């Protein structure tokens, strides 16, 4: 039996100084439960990296205490995907009938700080998140002949999509010139090539039947040795053949789903920075790394980040993956309005982050 999604809800992504992270979650969860006619749920998983102890419980307090198990789940950028994977497992095993998976986050301001790092590494300057992004970006440009203009073009394309997304933080167009005029954060990445950590929530109800089937909800980590893996080690091997976490998980998902990269009608992938989107496209098997320049120039076979991506939405860690899923569900229902991809039947959502934690979710219109 394949689990299905019967209800979705969102709180927009952005900055909401007058709302608590609990408030954000309540909005999203209420919207998802409303779609299912408030049918009773028998378990809940809450994805969050920063919301603290009993984060999920505080949200469900506002909905009603029923004694069901509520478990908070942390898997970095894939926290929401992990919550969904647990919900899917519970329903497919027939242990639960109807499970809520939601993600909530109110990111602290400033450069992302993670208890992942030992204090000495932070003090040494060896824990700066955008710096690692920049190293991957530099390698990408060197290997592929892509340029900063191409990275800026990715931002322009995603932001143009975000104009049509009422749940996105940035809803205005930008230009290559504006992106390149923004200050350099860590060469080659300029400020506007990086997404903004922010706040938001998303929720999904999983049960045995619904408008959208979950063909795969896979999680995975990494093999040892890739020095630029999302596990951010201090060393690795001189070996460029080690599959990255995204690729490991994607191929497991494709096999579980019985689909390949060529069967996808749309993809929501990790775009924490513009280079990361292109890296994701290659690691997911949508395009060879060597063909990325052609992809950017317009030969893209499948629409990527029609929601506007994290570059438009911002990134509230616990909510990101489920925000992608909510977008896919609207698309697969044919209810995505101005963002609608024609005849969308199969979609993929991808996140990857520190852990390493990678997730690939494949959905199909029922």
């Amino acid at each position, binding site marked *: 039996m394949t689990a299905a999604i019967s209800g979705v809800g969102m709180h927009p992504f952005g900055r909401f100084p007058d709302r608590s992270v609990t408030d954000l979650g309540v909005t999203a969860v209420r919207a998802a439960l409303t779609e299912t006619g408030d049918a009773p749920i028998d378990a809940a998983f809450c994805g969050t990296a920063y919301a603290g102890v009993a984060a999920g419980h505080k949200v469900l307090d506002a909905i009603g205490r029923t004694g069901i198990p509520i478990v908070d789940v942390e898997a970095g950028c894939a926290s929401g995907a992990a919550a969904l994977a647990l919900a899917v497992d519970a329903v497919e095993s027939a242990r639960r009938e109807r499970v809520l998976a939601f993600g909530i986050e109110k990111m602290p301001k400033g450069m992302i700080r993670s208890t992942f790092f030992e204090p000495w590494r*932070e003090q*040494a*300057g060896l*824990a700066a998140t955008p*710096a690692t992004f920049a190293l991957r970006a530099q390698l990408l440009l060197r290997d592929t002949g892509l340029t900063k203009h191409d990275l800026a073009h990715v931002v322009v394309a995603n932001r143009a999509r975000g104009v049509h997304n009422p749940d996105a933080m940035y809803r205005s167009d930008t230009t290559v010139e504006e992106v390149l005029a923004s200050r350099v954060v*860590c060469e080659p990445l300029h400020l506007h090539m990086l997404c903004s950590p922010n706040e938001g929530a998303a929720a999904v109800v999983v049960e045995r039947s619904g408008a959208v089937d979950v063909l795969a909800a896979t999680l995975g980590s990494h093999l040892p*040795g890739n*020095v630029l893996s999302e596990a951010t080690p*201090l060393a690795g091997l001189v070996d460029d053949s080690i599959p990255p976490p995204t690729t490991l998980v994607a191929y497991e998902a494709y096999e579980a789903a019985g689909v390949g990269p060529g069967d996808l009608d749309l993809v929501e992938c990790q775009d924490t920075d513009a280079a990361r989107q292109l890296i994701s496209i290659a690691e997911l098997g949508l395009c060879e790394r060597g063909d990325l320049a052609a992809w950017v120039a317009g030969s893209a076979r499948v629409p990527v980040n029609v929601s506007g991506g994290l570059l438009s939405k911002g990134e509230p860690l616990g909510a990101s993956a489920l925000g992608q899923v909510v977008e896919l569900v609207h698309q697969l229902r044919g209810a995505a309005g101005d963002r609608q991809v024609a005849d969308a039947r199969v979609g993929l959502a991808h996140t990857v982050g520190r852990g390493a934690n990678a997730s690939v979710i494949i959905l199909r219109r029922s």
Partner: protein
Amino acid sequence: MTTTELHEGLVALVDGEPRLVAGYSPTSKRFHFPRADVCPYSGAADVESRHLSPTGTLWTWTAVTAAPPSYSGPVPYGFGVVELPEGIRVVTRITESNPDALRAGQPMVLVLDTVATEDGERSIYAFAPA
């Protein structure tokens, strides 16, 4: 080292010169850094301490332009990955903070850098253009 190390065990002095202390596992025949009790490749607990070569080549680099959380050292500072002959790539501070002044494959040499912390100045490994 006249300045206290930021973190013990990363660097050893050999004839007065710094060397990174790696772990080596005869089972996997691979080096890892920092030295761990168990080899991340083989899972074997047969890890020996080995000193890595002090010279290598620059693989990838950038400069950090804003102080990250808990960092009180100078800004901007160079940051990147150096490849060493032992088949290992090491993440490191780089003493050159202008990315345009560096090139792929550039010869690099291990040095000791200094960062300010709440407890005073501390030494940390870095690589410099050779």
